[in-house]
């Protein structure tokens, strides 16, 4: 079962089967009945992440470095958790701009410059070649172990020529295979449905194969996990194998590896290919976000049992990286090892296929095409009539062969000295250098082209210095003294302890420094450089990619060219069929007669997109520039559109705010205006009232004065009576004027009071003495009810006296006509003193109790307020003035029910003055 022939037959048979699957899937796709339109297939295609490195290396890493092997899968789990946010954005962009690879993506983000794309492509080539080498090594090694076990596989490469080396032939066979179904169509942005279907099948095969070994090891070799673990318990040397102490770099190394795996998962060219370029439907992302981690969990489930079983075998198990094969082989099985070999083959070929396609696209679109275009530009005559469409596929095919040969070379020359995991991690660290430019570029509009170039260069240089070159040195390729003693003998330049940073594992160390320089340069340089207009547009489109409706707005350009020129360009680079199809889609005529017509903006946009799909965005840009005059596809207008939209939003927000403020202001103004009007009306009314009040006494005065003037003979008594009226009305007039002035002063706040400490009881006595004569004339009895002790208040004595007299005078006017009585009482509470003046008149109706404090209230035609006949009428200003004075002194004046006499009752409340002791 393990003869070379059988193994080779099975292997080639398997590859042939894959090819059939791929061909079938491609045909189905052409018929419009896609096989891969499901999230499960999408998740399985992402599982191309699990390479031979996983298949053989996980067990190896578990055996030597404990649980750290899991980090390579926990990282992607973290990344997939946010895939519906992050990857979705990338998918949206890639679809809208026909992105073909990660190099294309990064170059498009930073203004579609050829140089940046070339840099990314070169880094990918440099960083990923070892990874391809790793797969070749795995296949060769697997084959060797399978056919030679239990003897150690011979040192295959040492001296023999390459044509006897199986990995060389493996590489060549794979190259043919990849060319066959990787370059079937020109448009690299079109999905490779056949490839994806084949990859999905391979993912299933490797999972089944691995689970088969795992189940065999756990349940057949040992009768269940407990049996296995009890065997381990018997081996004290194995006790620490799964602990954190066994992890290189300890907790720091743990975290570094987790970050590395997370970043590499989205930046490895093949992962970008399957995650973004080959994505059929954004919606698949949410389901894949747990299906793929589940796949990872399953494929790792038996890693530890196999590793432990291998360790228990001792020397018979050979290298830990081959435990997966040697454990069943040592048990004497024949078929299972073959299945395992096929599983490993699946893992390795899946990776090589996707990676090579991704790399070859980058190489052709970003390294070779720009050179060709430049050449064609420089010597237009020579390349005038060359149809470059055919060239493209040729370039890509040559690139595939070259990449695989490069991988083979790496494997042949250096690979022997590395374990699987080591090579893989070196590649991971290289791919991680794309993360800052790519991820930050997705969220930070300010990241510039210059920043990205410097960042990538610095990052990859640090990576090479701290990881790649020391690796070369360790394998004997370079002199290794500089590794141990530092470049030029400078200890702080030691590649594994840069700037004296020691105690970390080499990957975390390299990742830390390279990402630090990378990210630092991206941010730092971006902050000091400017973006070109196109770059600004692209930055805006990338960062705003998830904005609804963005891409539909971003299609029209304003460049000018003729249909003929465009048609020629497309025919030259994409072939006649593609050109005709694109014109048909844009409803443009391909007739020669229409060639002079100007191309519509949508035709221009469509052409650029089609070219980008085949050649990459940067080259497409160069080509379009060659035929489109003026501001080609002026993306500036998209930028301004975007900016305008956000500005318009901002403006409208501010406008809304302003109009809101304006509304408030105008409301306040309206209120103020209404109040002013009201005040104006009140003022007019007051003036009218004052005028009326002044006219009344004046009328009597003038009338009697004239009567006295005209009548020479008037009885003395009558003359005297008339003169009395004049005097009386004059007094009334002057009193009125005084009160009006008082009121005006009170209302304008200009009344000056001179408050001082005084005894209210004494003041009441003095005031009532003053008014006693008037009261006696009216026949009014005044009862005083005063405390015996002094009641200190703070007030202006003259003004307070005025208030008291007014209150008593008022009460005496409205007291009952028969036996009029007025009572004045003083009572103190804790902090106040209350002065009460009541009469036995008709009282004041409840609803009129506040009205009496209005100016000239007595004018109101309520007979209740008219004093009984024979008593003088007031001015109607006494109470308003009194209230104003009391308020000025910090007190209150109001109408209440009369407690004893049943008529009107006015109450004045004043705060008691503080104790004399405390004031002095």
């Amino acid at each position, binding site marked *: 079962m393990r003869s070379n022939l059988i193994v080779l037959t099975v292997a080639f048979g398997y590859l042939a089967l894959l090819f059939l699957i791929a061909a079938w899937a491609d045909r189905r796709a052409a018929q419009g009945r896609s096989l891969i339109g499901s999230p499960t297939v999408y998740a399985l295609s992402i599982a191309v992440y699990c390479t031979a490195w996983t298949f053989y290396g996980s067990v190896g890493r578990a055996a030597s470095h404990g649980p750290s092997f899991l980090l390579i899968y926990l990282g992607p789990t973290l990344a997939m958790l946010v895939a519906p946010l992050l990857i979705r954005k990338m998918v949206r962009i890639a679809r809208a701009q026909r992105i073909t690879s990660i190099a294309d993506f990064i170059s498009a983000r930073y203004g579609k410059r050829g140089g940046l794309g070339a840099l990314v492509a070169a880094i990918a080539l440099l960083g990923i070649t070892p990874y391809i080498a790793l797969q070749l090594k795995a296949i060769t090694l697997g084959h060797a172990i399978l056919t030679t076990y239990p003897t150690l596989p011979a040192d295959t490469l040492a001296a023999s020529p390459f044509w006897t080396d199986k990995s060389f032939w493996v590489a060549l066979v794979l190259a043919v295979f990849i060319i066959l179904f990787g370059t079937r169509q020109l448009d690299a942005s079109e999905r490779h449905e056949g490839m994806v279907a084949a990859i999905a099948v391979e993912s299933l095969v490797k999972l089944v194969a691995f689970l088969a070994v795992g189940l065999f090891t756990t349940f057949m070799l040992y009768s269940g996990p407990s049996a296995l673990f009890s065997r381990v*318990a018997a081996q004290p040397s194995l006790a620490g194998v799964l602990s954190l102490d066994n992890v290189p770099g300890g907790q720091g190394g743990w975290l570094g590896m987790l970050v590395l795996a997370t970043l590499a998962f989205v930046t490895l060219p093949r992962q970008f290919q399957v995650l973004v370029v080959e994505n059929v439907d954004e919606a698949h992302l949410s389901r894949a976000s*747990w299906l793929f*981690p589940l796949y990872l969990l399953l494929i790792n489930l038996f890693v530890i049992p196999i590793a432990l079983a291998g360790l228990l075998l001792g020397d018979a198990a050979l290298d830990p990286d081959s435990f997966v094969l040697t454990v069943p082989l040592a048990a004497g099985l024949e078929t299972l090892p073959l299945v395992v070999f096929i599983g490993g083959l699946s893992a390795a070929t899946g990776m090589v296929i996707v990676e090579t396609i991704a790399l070859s696209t980058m190489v052709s679109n970003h390294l070779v095409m720009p050179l060709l275009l430049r050449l064609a530009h420089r010597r237009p005559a020579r390349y005038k009539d060359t149809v470059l469409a055919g060239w493209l596929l040729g370039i890509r095919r040559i690139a595939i062969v070259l990449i695989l040969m490069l991988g083979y070379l790496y494997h042949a020359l250096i690979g022997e000295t590395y374990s699987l995991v080591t090579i893989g991690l070196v590649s991971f660290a290289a791919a991680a250098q794309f993360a800052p430019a790519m991820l930050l570029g997705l969220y930070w509009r300010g990241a510039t082209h210059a920043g990205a170039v410097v960042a990538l260069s610095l990052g990859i240089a640090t990576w090479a210095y701290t990881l790649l070159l020391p690796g070369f040195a360790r394998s004997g390729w370079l002199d290794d003294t500089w590794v141990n003693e530092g470049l030029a003998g400078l200890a702080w330049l030691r590649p594994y302890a840069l700037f004296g940073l020691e105690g970390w594992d080499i990957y975390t160390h390299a990742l830390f420094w390279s990402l630090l320089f990378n990210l630092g340069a991206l941010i730092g340089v971006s902050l000091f450089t400017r973006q070109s207009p196109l770059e600004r547009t692209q930055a805006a489109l990338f960062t705003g990619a998830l904005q609804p409706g963005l891409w539909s707005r971003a299609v029209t350009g304003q460049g000018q060219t003729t249909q003929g020129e465009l048609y020629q360009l497309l025919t030259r680079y994409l072939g006649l069929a593609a050109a005709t199809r694109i014109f048909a889609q844009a409803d443009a005529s391909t007739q020669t007669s229409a060639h002079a017509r100007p191309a519509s903006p949508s035709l221009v946009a469509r052409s650029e997109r089609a070219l980008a799909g085949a050649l990459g965005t940067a080259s497409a840009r160069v080509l379009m520039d060659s035929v489109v005059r003026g501001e080609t596809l002026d993306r500036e207008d998209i930028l301004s559109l975007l900016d305008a939209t956000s500005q318009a939003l901002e403006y409208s927000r501010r406008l809304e705010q302003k109009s809101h403020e304006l509304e408030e202001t105008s409301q306040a103004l309206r209120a103020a205006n209404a109040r002013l009007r009201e005040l104006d009306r009140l003022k007019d009314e007051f003036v009218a009232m004052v005028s009326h009040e002044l006219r009344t006494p004046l009328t009597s005065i003038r009338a009697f004065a004239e009567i006295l003037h005209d009548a020479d003979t008037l009885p003395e008594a009558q003359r005297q009576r008339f003169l009395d009226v004049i005097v009386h009305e004059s007094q009334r007039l002057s009193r009125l004027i005084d009160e009006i002035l008082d009121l005006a002063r009170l209302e304008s706040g200009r009344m000056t009071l001179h408050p001082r400490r005084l005894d209210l009881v004494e003041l009441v006595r003095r005031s009532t003495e003053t008014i006693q004569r008037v009261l006696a004339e009216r026949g009014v009895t005044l009862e005083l009810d005063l405390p015996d002790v002094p009641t200190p208040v703070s007030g202006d004595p003259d003004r307070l006296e005025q208030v008291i007299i007014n209150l008593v005078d008022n009460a005496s006017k409205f007291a009952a006509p028969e036996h009029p009585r007025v009572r004045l009482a003083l009572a103190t509470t804790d902090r106040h003193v209350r002065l009460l003046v009541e009469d036995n008149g008709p009282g004041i109706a409840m609803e009129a109790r506040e009205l009496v404090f209005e100016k000239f209230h007595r004018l109101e035609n309520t007979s209740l307020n008219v004093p009984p006949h024979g008593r003088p009428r007031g001015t109607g200003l006494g109470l308003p003035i009194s209230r104003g004075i009391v308020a000025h002194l910090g007190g209150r004046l109001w109408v209440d029910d009369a407690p004893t006499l049943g008529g009107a009752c006015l109450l004045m409340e004043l705060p008691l003055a503080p104790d004399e002791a405390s004031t002095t």
Partner: protein
Amino acid sequence: MSGRRHTARRIALAILALLLFSPPVIGLFDIPSAITGLSWLPLYLFCAWGGIIALTAWLQSRESVLQEMPSLTETRSDDARHEK
């Protein structure tokens, strides 16, 4: 609006996963078993990992009703624009 909540939940879950998979939490489980002498850490990692996957699946089943439909139609119209 529901999309924003899903986003927040996704991010919260990712942060939870990051915490569970990182020191110092993992250090808490790096205790040798009394019987085999092997560390409990791998078992813990598998359990936490499985838990996170289950939570994500549950979250996605809640999202899918609201989110997948519009996103599907969106994609279709997008395709239609490209391919027509």
